[in-house]
Structures are given as structure tokens and as C-alpha cells.
């Protein structure tokens, strides 16, 4: 027995070393990810589609240049859409062959994409949201797209559309969609308690108190640390006329507006009238539709998922009756990796031009596949009917869209500082102290790195 135990002890000791493997192993596995067969990908919660145009095309496949496209569109409608058009593209020509891999959002932005670049297994075409785009643009791993962005195409986009994807005057990404944030509420619950949808912070606090019960929280906002928490926090600063960064791009985190917004969130959580453990990301509207909360911060992507007869939408409550509301516009941008050879880059450009610069494809994607806006006038015009199809869509189109500012594109370290500030204010210290601490850290970081931010 003793010898068995001793042998096992040795194994135990070697287990100590495994912590050091975390990175190495993860990177090794992620590196293998690209070559995983479709069946295995599905098991891992991903879906890879090799859309082929019949057996003849398959025979020719060997001669074609393979283009790999990664994204995070894992909803059924999104995958169907991609399957349809990737197949159409593959059938439309015989020079390139595209395969796509849809990876669940959290895995995509964390373990999947960065490790693929680290192990020289980067996809030819990929997508980034403002939360991660700076890392890729600053690293110089993206190909400029100026040659495919013709003047005619450019003039269709709004002026600010390329702000987040431009470096040194060159455009590196195609803005695909624009997701907005607002306040959803359960009509029946509010009616029962005689509560009007809140339009100010004070009304929000009062409404949460009236609606809160043992089983159903009055209000749900993101309490877990992360990108989504930061994303939904920004508009509470902006709606007071404030910013998290000054005009010259330096930290402004201990400004009155930031402290006020932190204080509001802290008051709401401390009141006991809000959802302390939503149990999943608050970007999931099911918290409201399952009856777990009476009001929830959520986005335009849920317009088609929340029955407008049961659930209403209002802009995020304003700081006071005299000030307006604000919202944030996030969304994904299509980028091309410059890590492949010239042929692959040319193929990737050909594919994204065909797929994502085509007005009809983008319109269908933003209205029928999912509900989101686009920074292209022609797309908004073409989707008019959908954007006015019910009360909630109208609220987003007529009241929220105009107040939205682009999501702040922060570096990893800067995002961590903002995230810690919000967590500190919610749980560890008073709002002012959390803001002061974050301001100090951000200034130090900006001094060391020279990074500047807008928003």
C-alpha cells in the first residue's frame, strides 16, 4: 500500500507542475483547433461548415485557394445565412474556396482567436468587436482594405463608421452591424404595480423598489466583471455629458460624471432591489422573459426575441429630467489577416467584397437574420420596414439610435482598469475612491504605454 501511495505521491508532485502548463497546453490545443474535423468542432460547441458546390466543384477544390473565415455567429439563423452565402460564393467562382467556423462568443474572443495568431494558425478572414479590435490593429496583423473600399462604397457609410478601424489613414475593417443598448421591461408587471417605465435615475430606483419581490428582482444590470459590464456602463457617463477619456485621449475616470454613474450602480445594487446573481450574461434577454426580473438592460439584438405585446423598451433612464438619454453602439468588424500569402489575401479580399460589401447581403443580415443597425445609409433605408415593424423596434430606431456613441475601443490592460473600477465601486469601496484608484492606474498605464483612447 505504502509503495502505491508513494508512487501516487510522485504523480501528485508532478501535478504541481501542471499549473505551468496552462498556457502552453492551451496554446498547443488552440493551434490544433484549425484542423479539427467538423464533427469534433460541433462537440466543442462550434460549427464548421465546408460549403461546397456539388461534386464537380469538390473535385476542383484541390486546385482552389482555401480561405478560412472565423466569426462568432452561432445562432441558427446566423449559421444558415452564412452557409447559404458561403456556398453561393464557392459556386460563383472556381479560384477560391471558403470554409467558415462559428465559435461561441466567449471562447472566440478569449482562447480561440489570439492563440490562433500566436501559433501561426490565424484565419484569413475574422471579426473583431471594439472590445478586442485595438489589440489586432495595433499588432499590425491586419491587411488594409482601402483597395476594396471604393469611393462609392465609402460614401454609403456614415462619417464615424470607420473611426474604430482606421490606423494611419488606412481602413482595416468593414463595420458590419451596430448593436444598441436600452431598457426592457415587463409590461404586465409594471401595470400591476402601477409603475410607469422609468425615464430618470430617480424613477429607475423607485420603480426597482416597487417591482422587487422575493422571486423577481426589480431591475437587472450586469454585476459580473467583463466587457459587457463596461459596454453597458459607458452610456451612464455619456448621458451626463461626460466622458471616460479627455479630448486628448487621457484618463478622465475620476470625473464627476463617472463617479455619479458608479454611485448610481452602487446604490441600485445596495438597495437590494436588483438582481444580485443573474446567473448568466445580462446580454441574454431570457432573464426578463423567464420572469426573473421586471426590468433589464439589454440590446437591440433582442427585439426579435422579446414579444412586443409583453415586453416594452425605453431609452436608458437619463440622469435627470433636464438631461437626455444616451446609448452605446457596439458591433463587429470584418478584418483580413496579413499573415497568409498574397494569394490568400487576394482571395480573402475577393470574398469579403462579395459577401460583406454587398448591400443586399448586409441588409438581410441586419434585418432578417438578426435585428441590428448598420452604419450604411442604404442598409438603413432598405430595412425601413423592419426597423419600424413594432413598438420596440420603433423605440430603438427613433429614440435610441440617435443618442448612441461608439463603444470605447480599449486595450486589454485599459479594459481591466475600467472593469476593476466598476467592481470596486460595486463591492469594495465608495464610488469616488474606486474612480480615483482607477484614474491613477490608467494614467500610469498610459504614461508607460503611450496609449490614448476616445470616448
Amino acid at each position, binding site marked *: 500500500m505504502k509503495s502505491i501511495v508513494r508512487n501516487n505521491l510522485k504523480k501528485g508532485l508532478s501535478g504541481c507542475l501542471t499549473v505551468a502548463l496552462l498556457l502552453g497546453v492551451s496554446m498547443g490545443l488552440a493551434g490544433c483547433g484549425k484542423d479539427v474535423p467538423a464533427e469534433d468542432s460541433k462537440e466543442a460547441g462550434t460549427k464548421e461548415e465546408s460549403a461546397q458546390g456539388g461534386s464537380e466543384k469538390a473535385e476542383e477544390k484541390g486546385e482552389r485557394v482555401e480561405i478560412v473565415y472565423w466569426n462568432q455567429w452561432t445562432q441558427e439563423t446566423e449559421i444558415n445565412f452564412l452557409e447559404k452565402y458561403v456556398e453561393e460564393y464557392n459556386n460563383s467562382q472556381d479560384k477560391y474556396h471558403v470554409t467558415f467556423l462559428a465559435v461561441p462568443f466567449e471562447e472566440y474572443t478569449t482562447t480561440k482567436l489570439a492563440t490562433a495568431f500566436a501559433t501561426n494558425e490565424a484565419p484569413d478572414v475574422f471579426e473583431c468587436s471594439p472590445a478586442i479590435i485595438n489589440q489586432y490593429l495595433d499588432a499590425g496583423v491586419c491587411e488594409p482594405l482601402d483597395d476594396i473600399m471604393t469611393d462609392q462604397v465609402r460614401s454609403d457609410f456614415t462619417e464615424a463608421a470607420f473611426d474604430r478601424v482606421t490606423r494611419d489613414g488606412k481602413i482595416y475593417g468593414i463595420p458590419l452591424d451596430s448593436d444598441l443598448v436600452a431598457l426592457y421591461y415587463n409590461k404586465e408587471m409594471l401595470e400591476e404595480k402601477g409603475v410607469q417605465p422609468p425615464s430618470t435615475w430617480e424613477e429607475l430606483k423607485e420603480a426597482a423598489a416597487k417591482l422587487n419581490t*422575493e*422571486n423577481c428582482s426589480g431591475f437587472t444590470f450586469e454585476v459580473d*466583471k*467583463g466587457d459587457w459590464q463596461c459596454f453597458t456602463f459607458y452610456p451612464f457617463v455619456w448621458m451626463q455629458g461626460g466622458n471616460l477619456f479627455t479630448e486628448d485621449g487621457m484618463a478622465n475616470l475620476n470625473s464627476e460624471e463617472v463617479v455619479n454613474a458608479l454611485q448610481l450602480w452602487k446604490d441600485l445594487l445596495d438597495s437590494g432591489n436588483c438582481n*444580485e446573481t443573474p446567473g448568466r450574461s445580462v446580454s441574454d434577454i431570457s432573464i426578463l422573459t423567464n420572469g426573473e426580473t421586471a426590468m433589464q438592460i439589454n440590446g437591440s439584438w433582442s427585439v426579435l426575441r422579446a414579444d412586443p405585446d409583453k415586453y416594452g423598451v425605453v431609452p436608458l433612464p437619463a440622469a435627470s429630467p433636464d438631461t437626455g438619454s444616451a446609448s452605446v453602439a457596439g458591433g463587429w468588424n470584418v478584418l483580413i489577416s496579413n499573415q497568409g500569402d498574397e494569394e490568400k489575401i487576394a482571395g480573402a479580399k475577393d470574398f469579403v467584397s462579395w459577401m460583406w460589401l454587398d448591400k443586399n447581403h448586409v441588409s438581410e443580415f441586419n434585418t432578417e437574420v438578426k435585428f441590428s443597425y448598420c452604419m450604411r445609409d442604404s442598409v438603413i433605408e432598405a430595412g425601413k420596414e423592419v426597423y419600424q415593424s413594432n413598438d420596440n423596434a420603433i423605440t430603438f430606431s427613433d429614440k435610441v439610435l440617435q443618442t448612441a456613441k461608439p463603444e470605447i475601443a480599449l486595450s486589454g490592460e485599459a479594459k481591466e482598469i475600467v472593469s476593476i473600477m466598476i467592481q470596486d465601486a460595486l463591492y469594495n469601496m465608495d464610488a469616488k475612491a474606486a474612480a480615483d484608484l482607477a484614474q491613477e492606474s490608467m494614467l500610469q498605464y498610459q504614461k508607460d504605454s503611450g496609449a490614448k483612447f476616445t470616448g
Partner: protein
Amino acid sequence: MGKKKQGGKRRETMTAVFMIAPEILLMLVFIFIPIVHACYISLFDWNALRAKSFVGISNYMKMLKDSTFKNSILITGKYAVIYVSAIYVLSLAAAVFVNSIKGKKRQQVCRVGIYLPNTVSTIVAATLWAFLFNSRNGYINKLLTEAGLKRQLFLGSQSQALVCVAIVGIWVVFGYDMIIFLSALKDVPGDYYEAAKIDGANAVQRFFRITLPLIKGTSIFILITTLVASFQVFDQVRVMTAGGPGKATEVTVYYIFQLAFEQYRFGYASTIAVSLSLILMLVTIVQLKLLKFK
């Protein structure tokens, strides 16, 4: 005859080599090479996208001043204390209980029942327990309010979240350790107990004077393997709390994950991963010395 013997020995050696080779190869690929690679990366500033830039030991110097790292070590330590002590006591108690059950079938049923949670993956268990711990609609809170007690925040409370996370780990693992204890208990000769009984020793005395000393090797094995596992806790934290509320459950491995995969600071994350391994090795050696294991 001599040649035959020699040939047999060679065959035996070859068989041994073939049997060990796959494990050695896998360990080499998945353990030793990544360890060396992690040590190497820890000397660089690297965001996985750009070329590595050599910074020497400056990542290690930075780590010494990093309050988040120190805090994560403290939280990991707290977690280890809860996890190791609970698993040791519960698995030993369960083993003694199962061992005392009369009847082979009844003993088997009980053993399977206690072992069953170990067949559930930690991610699934964590998701399940997150529902149970829900501050509004969780069954645990429903039971508490039914019993006239106050609703608890559990995962939303800074003082309770770490315990909740530990409960999941304990629930999954203690059945496995119970089986190991049980096999050790079965090795203790029955004569010793009979002799002690004749000498008038009661059940408690028999446990502390006979059982515990005779299963010391197994105890040390359980203590060390659970300690190693406690320092590697990640799944439950990722699923249940994301390191929160505040930093209440931000254990070191979760901090490493955030540094590497959310902030893209792979060099610095490797530095902390290497340091954590060293800390863990040190703690294990101290533990072995203290427990006087030979």
C-alpha cells in the same frame, strides 16, 4: 538455456519500454515541453500577436509588486484551506461510514451513491449549483425561506461566494477520495480492532489509535493531491462567479486566464503560472516534511 533466459529478459524489457513509452511521450508533449516553453515565455513581453520582446526577469519583478497577484494567492490559500480540510474530513467520514455498513450489497449501493457526483464534469456541476445558489429562485434559498430563515446572496456575497465555489469542488471530488480511503481501511487487519476491543478501547479510541495511524500514507496522499487540485481551481470560478463579486473569488489560475486570454499578456501570465507552480511545489515539500512522510 542461457540464451533463452537472455531473450526472455530482453523481451520483458522491450514490453516494459513499449508500455511506458506512450505515457512518457504524452507527458513529454503535454507536460514537460509546455513547462519549458512557459518558463521561456515568462521572460518575454508578448501579446501573442506581435513578436516577443525579451525583458529578462522584469516580469518577475513586476509580479512581486502586483497587488492583484498577491490577493489572488491569498484567495487561493483560503480556497485551499476550505477545500482540503473539507475533502479530508468528509471523504474519511464517508469511508468509515461505508466501511461500517453491514452487507455487501448495501455497502455497494452506498459507495456508488457517494461516488456518483465524481462522474459529473465540473462545468456541469458548477452550472447546476449556480442555479441552486441563485439568490432569488435557487432551491437552497427556497428551503431557507420555507424554514423561516433569511434569503442569502450566496454567489452575490463577497463572504459566501468562495465557500459556494468550494462546495462544488468538494461535491465532485470527495466521493473519489472516499474510495481511496475505503481501500486503505480495508487493508487494516481486523485483529487489531478485536485486540483493542478486548482491552476496552471504545470506537473513538479505536479510530484515533488504530485506524488513523495505519492509514497515514493514504491520508498524506489525499492531503497532497487535494492541495495540488485546490491551487488549480478554475472551472467553477469561470462558470459561477467570473472572479467576483469584486475580487472575492479571483483565484490565481483565474487571474492567469484573464491576463493571458482577456488582456493578451501572455508573457506576464506565464510568469505567474511558473511562480504558482514553484509556490505549490514549495508548499507540497513543506507539507511532506511536516507530516514526516518517508
